[in-house]
C-alpha cells in the first residue's frame, strides 16, 4: 500500500484535535492537585462548560461570550467545590464525586432546550496556509485558537510551576501546607485560586467539545473524558509535558484503531477499543518509573484537608 504523506498529516491532525480537551482539563486539574487538592469533579465541570458554551453561543450568538462564559461557568461550579472543601473542610473525594453528579444532572436540565439545535461554525486560523507544505501544513494550520492554546498550555504550565514564584508557592502549598502557612502564605487563598483555575480549564475543555469538536449539545456528551483527564494527571506523575504525551497516545490510539478497523486488520475489535486505555497507562507508567522523581513530584498533601490558618 502506498502511503500518502498528506494522509499521515491528516491523521496526526485528527489525533491532536481529539487530544485537546484532555490536555486542557488535565493541565487545569494538575494545578489544582499540585496545590494539594484532589478534585474528582473534572467530568462535571467539563459538562457544565459544554452546556454553558453551547447555550451562550445559541442565545447570544457570540463565540467570544460563549467561550469565556463556559470558563466562567467552570469557575462558578468549582467555587462550590472550593467553598465546601476549603471553608467547610469537607472530604475532597466525596465532594468531587458529588460535583460530577451535580454537573451531569444540571447540565441535562439546562440542556433540555438545546437538544437538536445545530452549532455554529467556529473560525479557524491560518486556513490559507493549509496546502502550502505536505505533511506539515495540515498539522500546523487551519485549527481553532483553542487548539493552539491547548498545545501551548503544557509548556506554560511547566514553566509556571518550575520557574515562577507563584508556581513555587503553589507547589509549597501542595507539598507542605503547614510550612507554607508558617511562611506567611495564605494556604486557603492559594488553594481557592488553584481550584477555580482548574474549573476554568475544565469549562474550556467542555466548550471545545460542544462548540468546536462536535458542535452540538447532547446529554452526557463528555462521555467520560473527564475521568480520563484525571487518570492522565496521576499517570503522568503531575508532569505537564507527560500529560501532553499521554493525551496524544490516548487520542492517537482511539483514532488509529478506527483506521485499523477500516483497513480490515484482523484483530478483535474489542481489543482495539480497549487499546487506548491499556497502552496509555503502560507508557506513562514506564516513562515515569523513577520512584525518586515520583516522590518529588507527587504533592504530599494531596487530598488532605488543611484547616490551620483562619
Amino acid at each position: 500500500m502506498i502511503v500518502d504523506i498528506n494522509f499521515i498529516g491528516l491523521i496526526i491532525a485528527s489525533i491532536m484535535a481529539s487530544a485537546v480537551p484532555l490536555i486542557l482539563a488535565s493541565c487545569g486539574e494538575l494545578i489544582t492537585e499540585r496545590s494539594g487538592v484532589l478534585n474528582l469533579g473534572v467530568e462535571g465541570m467539563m459538562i457544565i462548560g459544554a452546556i454553558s458554551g453551547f447555550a451562550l453561543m445559541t442565545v447570544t450568538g457570540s463565540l467570544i461570550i460563549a467561550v469565556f462564559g463556559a470558563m466562567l461557568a467552570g469557575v462558578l461550579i468549582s467555587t462550590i467545590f472550593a467553598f465546601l472543601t476549603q471553608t467547610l473542610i469537607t472530604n475532597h473525594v466525596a465532594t468531587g464525586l458529588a460535583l460530577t453528579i451535580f454537573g451531569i444532572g444540571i447540565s441535562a436540565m439546562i440542556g433540555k432546550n438545546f437538544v437538536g439545535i445545530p452549532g455554529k461554525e467556529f473560525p479557524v486560523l491560518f486556513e490559507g496556509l493549509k496546502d502550502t507544505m505536505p505533511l506539515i501544513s495540515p498539522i500546523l494550520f487551519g485549527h481553532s485558537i483553542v487548539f493552539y492554546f491547548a498545545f501551548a498550555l503544557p509548556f506554560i504550565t511547566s514553566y509556571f510551576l518550575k520557574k515562577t514564584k507563584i508556581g513555587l508557592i503553589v507547589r509549597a502549598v501542595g507539598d507542605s501546607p503547614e510550612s507554607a502557612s508558617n511562611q506567611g502564605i495564605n494556604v486557603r487563598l492559594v488553594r481557592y485560586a488553584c481550584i477555580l483555575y482548574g474549573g476554568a480549564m475544565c469549562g474550556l475543555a467542555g466548550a471545545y467539545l460542544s462548540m468546536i469538536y462536535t458542535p452540538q449539545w447532547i446529554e452526557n456528551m463528555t462521555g467520560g473524558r473527564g475521568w480520563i483527564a484525571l487518570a492522565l494527571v496521576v499517570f503522568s506523575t503531575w508532569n505537564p509535558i507527560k500529560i501532553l504525551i499521554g493525551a496524544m497516545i490516548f487520542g492517537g490510539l482511539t483514532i488509529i484503531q478506527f483506521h485499523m478497523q477500516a483497513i480490515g486488520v484482523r484483530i478483535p475489535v474489542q481489543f482495539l477499543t480497549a487499546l487506548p486505555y491499556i497502552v496509555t497507562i503502560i507508557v506513562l507508567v514506564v516513562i515515569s518509573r523513577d520512584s525518586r522523581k515520583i516522590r518529588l513530584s507527587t504533592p504530599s498533601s494531596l487530598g488532605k484537608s488543611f484547616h490551620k490558618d483562619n
Partner: protein
Amino acid sequence: MHKFFIRSFVSSLVLLFTFTVAATAKDVKAAFVYIGPTGDHGWTYQHDVGRKAVEAAGFKTTYVEGVPESADAERVLRQLANSGHDVIFTTSFGYMNPTNKVAKEFPNVKFEHATGYKREHPNVSTYAARFYEGRTILGTIAGTMTKSNVIGYVASFPIPEVIRGINSFTLAAQKVNPNIKTKIVWAFTWYDPGKEAEAAKALIDQGADVIAQHTDSTAIVQIAEKAGVYAFGQASDMDKFAPKAVLTSVENNWGPYYVDRVKAVANGTWSQKDTWHGIGDGMVVISDLDSQMPADLRSKVKKLQADLASGKVHSFTGPIYDQKGNLMVAEGKTADDGMLAGMMTYVKGVEGDIPK
C-alpha cells in the same frame, strides 16, 4: 456509576410523584420506560416524541428516563404498574425479561415491549420497526452517489438489528453499483459524539465519500459536512445539522403506534400482538430527498419507497450469499422474519468480520 446513582435518584423521585398523584385517576394512563435520556436526540428522543403524540391525543403519560437494563428495570416496572398505569411501554431490548416477569404479576396492566420477541403472558405485546427497509433506500442512494466507490459505515454493537442494517444497505448499494466496498467501523457506543466523529473522520481519511451510521448522534453528519462528503441522518431528520452532506434521513416514527395502542386499551380492544412495521405502515419514515441528487435518482428512490411500502420489493430478495459464498436466500425467495430477527452473518461484499 455516578450516572447510575443520579438516574436512580431521579427515577425514584418521579415514581414517588406518580405514586402520589396517580391512583385515583380513571382515564387510561400510559407509562414509558427509557434506556437513555430524552435529550439524546436519537433513540430515546424519538420514543419521547411518540409519547408526546399520546399526550396530544388526550391521554396522561409518565416516563422514567435512564433505567438500566438490570434488576432496576423490574423495580421501576413494578412501581409503575402499582401506581395506576394501564399500559406500560418498555423501549429497549434489554427490558425483555423484566417486562415478562412483571407482566405475570399484573395481569390487568398491558405491557408493550420494543424490539423483543418474548410474549410469555397474554398481556405482553412486542413491537419493532423495519429500519432495514430505510437502509435499502440509503444503500441505493449511496451506491449511486459515490465516486470513490468506498462507502463508510459507522456501526454501534454487533447485534442482529445492526447486522441486518449493514446487509440491507450493502445489498442495495451493490445492486446499483457492483464495484462498491462497504468499510465498517465499530464504535461500540450508541452515542458518544466525540468517538463517532473520530470514526467518521477515519473512514473519510481512507477515501469514503458517503458515510452511513447506526449510532445516534449528529456528530457524523457534521464531520461529513466539513469534509465535503455525503451522509444520512439517523433516527430523526438531521438535515439542519449538515444541509449539504445529508441526502436524506431514516426517521423512527413511533407516535401513531403508541396512540393506536393506548386507544385500544381505552376502548377495551387491546389484545396481544407482535408488530413489525416498516415504511408501509409509517413507522419508518424517509425524510425529504436532497436536491443534490439527480432527478432520475430521486424518482427511482420514490418508486423504491412505494414498492417497499406495498411489499412489491423486499430488502432481502434472493439470491443472497454470505461472505463465504453459501446461499442464504434462494433466487426468487425473500428472507423470512425469523431469519431477519436472528441475522448474525454478513452478506457477500461486506468486508471484515463481525466482532464476537
